């Protein structure tokens, strides 16, 4: 089965990268210590993880409904606007410009970054923040990811947008699937070709990068690594013909919003606030009745 092979390879490569990075950036001692008292650490971030799980579950279970709603009811096809916006901003199309630097080496690099680098970038902070003294950073990360997915899902429902490779084969090349057609087996199970605005690859990568900045004192080495990877992932989405420049800008904006939410709000806080809100409503209601 092609999907299984692709997945196995992904797991193997990413696991290797994770182990290396953990040993160098976090250090074996910290990891061992964290693993010993994993129980309270897990408990500490149980709520945000549950929230993330709920959002992912909604996304996974409503795929058909969302697709039907997006394509048959709402039908906001913004592809031509994205094309023209890119053109208007630069006079020429930034994706085409990036692709004009095409070499075999660069393509291999960006394909690697887009698939393996991205998976690594998303998973590593979980390990790194898990090994810290406090679980605040991990909770922030999870809340920020949740916000990314929730807002992303909303945009995907509201807008139909095809990426450059799908619109104009004369101007743009679909480098990823030309170089690595099997990867579509993988991405197809996760996403559809009408969901390119905003770029979740960019937003999640940039979220990790912005949080690396927030935690730069704890992991100084992680900041440049995350920065390099996040920017490479963003560029790769355009170089490979998957996203427009506008998607990447929107993805970065979404990352900023998500990090803001992650840093300033906690799931506990939101739950408490909503409980307070309903309580006052209830009290007022009761008071009115009396």
């Amino acid at each position, binding site marked *: 089965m*092609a999907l299984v092979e692709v997945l196995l390879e992904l797991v193997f490569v990413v696991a290797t990268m994770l182990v290396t990075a953990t040993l160098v950036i976090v250090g074996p001692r910290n990891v061992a210590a964290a693993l010993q008292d994993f129980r309270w650490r897990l408990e500490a971030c149980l709520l945000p993880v549950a929230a993330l799980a709920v959002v992912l579950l909604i996304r996974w279970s409503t795929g058909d409904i969302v697709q039907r709603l997006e394509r048959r009811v709402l039908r906001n*096809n913004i*592809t031509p606007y994205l094309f*023209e916006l890119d053109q208007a901003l630069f006079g020429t199309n930034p994706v085409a410009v990036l692709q004009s630097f095409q070499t075999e080496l660069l393509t291999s690099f960006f394909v690697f970054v887009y698939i393996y680098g991205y998976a690594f970038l998303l998973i590593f902070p979980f390990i790194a923040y898990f090994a810290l003294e406090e679980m605040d950073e991990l909770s922030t990360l999870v809340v920020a990811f949740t916000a990314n997915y929730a807002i992303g899902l909303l945009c995907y429902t509201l807008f139909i947008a095809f990426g450059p490779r799908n619109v104009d*084969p004369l101007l743009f090349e679909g480098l990823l699937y*030309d170089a690595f057609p099997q990867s579509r087996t993988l991405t197809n199970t996760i996403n559809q070709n009408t969901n390119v605005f905003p770029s979740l690859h960019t937003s999640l990568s940039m979220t990790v990068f912005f949080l690396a900045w927030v935690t730069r004192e704890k992991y100084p080495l992680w900041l440049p690594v995350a920065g390099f990877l996040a920017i490479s992932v963003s560029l790769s989405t355009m170089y490979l013909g998957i996203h427009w420049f506008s998607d990447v800008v929107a993805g970065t904006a979404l990352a900023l919003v998500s990090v803001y939410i992650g840093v300033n709000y906690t799931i506990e806080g939101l739950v408490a606030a909503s409980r307070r809100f309903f309580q006052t409503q209830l009290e007022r209601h009761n008071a009115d009745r009396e």
Partner: protein
Amino acid sequence: MDDVAPSTTRRGLLATVGVGASALAGCSERLWSQAETTGPEQVSLTIKTVPADDDRLAATIASRLRENYTAAGIDATHEPVSKAELYRDILLEGEYDVFVTRHSGFDEYDALYGLLHSQFVSERGWQNPFHVSDVTIDEYLETQREADETDRSSVLADLIGHLLQTTPYTVVAYPYTVSGVTEPLQLPIPPRCPREYIEVMSHPENGPRDGPLEVGVFGEGLTEELNPLTVDRNRIDGLLDLVYDPLVRQIGDEYVPWLAEDVEWPEEGQRRARITLREGLEWHDGESLDTDDVEFTLAFLEDTSMGSVDGGVPAPRYRGRQTLLDRTAVIDDRTIDLYVFEASQTAARRLLTIPLLPAHIWTERSEAVADRQTEAITVANEDPVGSGLFAVSEATTATEFELESFDAHVLRGTADRPELLEGFSQFEGITFRIAPNPGAMGGLLIDGEIDVTASELPPETAREIRNATATRTVTGTTDAFYMIGYNSRQDELGNPNFRRLCSRLIDREHAVSEFFEGFAQPATTPNALVGLHDWDFDDELETSPDTDPLAFPGTDGEPNTSRVQSLFADIGYRYEDELLLE
């Protein structure tokens, strides 16, 4: 009262307006004219087509078209729409200006009747999707239906000439079909339709094999919905024709009695066909198939609401053929008379190629579910019950689709069967393996997981398959074509001269050599330009002043801007700053 301030403002505003108005009134007539006239705007057109994922070639033609329109001073936009939704936009809702798509080709000259007759102007599906209403076209379409062989060719020639003048649509090229195949398998022709599947499955050197023919396809949502009456879906080519059988199957130019044992045209004038069904016909669910099902199908296509909706809800498919029918008369279980309207036998026999539907299942689907929608044309029909050589198996997943042999089919047992079925079948059914894109489909073939590919191979994947050791490609020709269609209801596109000029704005020969890499035939002759690949008549078509009536004004795919501008000027358009004005 706290609205003192606004009322002052209102008074002030009124005063200003009053002063302004009287000032304007005293002004010269020139200012008035300027204020009253809105300036002419640039002509704008949106080209809808599928994304490259669905059909790279259609997307490429559309992008070239956009560039050429832009060069002509048109504000052109290229909007990709997923295949199913594109069909919905152009065939059901008429929401488009210009579309580019692949058409599966015409079965007979009379197919133009359904495509263009104004009687279908408000119907859905491939029935007049361009919304043309042209009495001349109607007259030619009706006359060719009735005419005998000798008269028909001249009427058709006139029709083609008129269509080239008015161009409701235009054809770009006839692509070759290309299939990849693993080495030992003999593949006479790339499989797309039942006849071609039967040929590969009955080839003496291909078996017998304990297992199905493994066929690779790619695409989105290919097996989600298996309703033979709907048009707004992405499908595996030929799949439903393997499941649903007609009375008579068209094999090339032959009409081979299929579920019908015999077709008799007893009377002079040939207004009636007497059909005798084969003995022991069965539906896939074991129910017997009789003349009631034939009568039902033909009536149901005309009105899927079976009289419950005023004016009826015609099916979006097979209507062009169905309108040949006047009425039916069931004689007994196996004999039925079909009375046709004024039509020659050549045109009328198309009626017999409509796939049959089981009355016991579709009768219940006549309920209206929305405006101009019945259950019959919206239902997913996930477990299709047909009477074809293959039945849909229940063991179907998102990446695999199985057709099992329908052993009770009379043509599998009887000795008296069409020549085509000689040696059928060396395989036990067909399994479709669904890949996400052409590259992955090619990968499955090279890895030896499938026997043959059935979705169109883009040139680069075909190359990879040829370069691999145990695989090769087979090329064939079909009547399928890439077309550009225009919505006659949209502003400028209502003007035949404008459409004709737009139809010249694509360099067909350049497109074939560059985009198709030579794997297609450009449409250049009059009949080819309207979608009639073959011209079977003896007399030549009249050629227009220049040999290619829709010649491209430019070279090597690039339009000559000044030439295009003068052509638009010739038909009454104006330019300002290189922009084409309405």
